[in-house]
């Protein structure tokens, strides 16, 4: 479904990602784990089109999307829930969610999708008319996820959804991700919270200093010596 082939990418003259390859199949939950600064965010941004690859190719459903702008990849069905939530602070929760349904294929279903999404996040229903900036961190993360779902994506990418959240909220976030996956949406998660994420995923990649160093089934990675030492502290 999504295939990244030998991609190099970075900012300005700095190369961050080197020779990255990965693939995600329909219905899978795939995770990319790695330390702070490994290049996880850069990789998701490159897939989204916010960062352009220098070399290599990205295809989605068999079509080349390497050079597409970010707003075009959304129209293809690729949605990124960015790190740090990136809500529209001075807009209401409702307007934030409606912005999620801005892309062409989601527009016409906007009201139905909003209804579905609010079923999943009943607490947001009471907050619909509040400004996004007035919400707690956990609630803001829920809005960010709900906004991503409003786009009715084929693949939903999460960039560190648990960052800065209390442990109990982290569990809720992962429950929601499981529910998203259960609806058949393909999921790609990037996390530093390695244990939680590998538990939730089918397969995983390990990213270190901009290079993919390891890939395997999630269960196998949980048993892997390197992963246990470097990321799980066992």
């Amino acid at each position: 479904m999504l295939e990244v082939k030998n991609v190099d990418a970075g900012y300005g003259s700095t190369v961050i990602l080197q020779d990255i390859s990965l693939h995600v199949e329909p219905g899978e939950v795939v995770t990319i784990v790695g330390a702070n600064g490994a290049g996880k965010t850069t990789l998701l941004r490159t897939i989204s089109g916010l960062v352009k690859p220098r070399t290599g190719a990205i295809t989605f459903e068999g079509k080349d999307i390497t050079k597409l702008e970010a707003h075009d990849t959304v129209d293809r069905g690729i949605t990124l829930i960015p790190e740090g939530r990136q809500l529209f602070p001075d807009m209401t929760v409702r307007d934030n969610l409606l912005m999620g349904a801005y892309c062409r294929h989601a527009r016409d279903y906007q009201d139905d999708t909003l209804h579905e999404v609010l079923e999943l996040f009943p607490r947001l229903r009471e907050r619909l008319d509040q400004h996004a900036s007035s919400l707690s961190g956990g609630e803001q993360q829920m809005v960010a996820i709900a906004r991503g779902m409003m786009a009715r994506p084929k693949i939903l990418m999460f960039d560190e959804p648990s960052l800065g959240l209390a442990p109990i909220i982290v569990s809720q976030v992962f429950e929601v991700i499981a529910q998203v996956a259960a609806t058949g949406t393909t999921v790609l998660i990037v996390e530093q919270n390695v244990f939680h994420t590998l538990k939730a995923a089918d397969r995983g990649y390990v990213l270190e200093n901009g290079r993919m160093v390891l890939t395997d089934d999630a269960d196998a990675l949980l048993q892997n010596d390197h992963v246990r030492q470097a990321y799980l502290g066992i």
Partner: protein
Amino acid sequence: MDTFLQIVANGLMLGGLFAIVAVGLTLIFGIVKVINFAHGEFLMVGMYLTFLLSTGLDVHPYLTAAAVAPALFVLGALTQRLLIQPLMSARDEHVQIFATVGLSTALMNLALLVFGADIANTPAHGVRSQVMLGEVRILTGQLWVFGAAILLVIALQLFMKKTRTGRAIRATAQNRAAARLMGINDKFIYVLTFGLGAACVGLGSSLIAPLYPTSPTIGTYFVLIAFVCVVLGGLGSIPGAFFGALVIGLVDALSGFYIGSDLREAVVFTIFLLILILKPSGLFGTRMTQSHVSP
């Protein structure tokens, strides 16, 4: 008392006029984050277009707004697309300011070349006739400008709050990268917004032309005052610009009468400097959380 009321009325009418120029300026600043120093020359171009169309076709100058506003939309959109957008990635934001100052000078000189330094008088078609509101005398054209300014502010607010495109414009201003992730074409939004801001002053120019003689330098005066209104109202706030314009209109009229007409502008700009020093977010302004830097 009658004199005082008359001066207040004059001030409010003047405020409406400033408002209709300031609204587009604050829209462009609030969304595109560019101070359009050519805004006054947009007004000047619109006034010349109004003059040419209304004399050439012998129609009421207000009717020409149907052509002038779209023409100014195109001028604004092209300015963003061809001048500002190529400079947006420039490290130094001042480059964009120089660009609009350059455009301002270029348009002014173009007008001098085409029309000469003489003034052009757009036919009034009755809008310079007076009406009495109680004890107060007002030009009908001033009333139209005032009403149009109010309608424009309301229409823009509704557009920004209630339409999908309006929401997309606000979203782009609040978080450009996130807006792109929603599927919003940010470059298109900037072109559209610059066009809309210019169209607003285009509408204004058709209403102002029959009241003021048009000259190549007419924009300079208006844009400076409009800039003061925008700062007073809080940069980027559309209702703020409107109320800021009313305040400046009143200050202008009252100081012109009680202090001396030579000192009007000195008073207005003193107030401007005081605001910049004491309350830079403006009288009605809120915190600006907006950035066009795409991280």
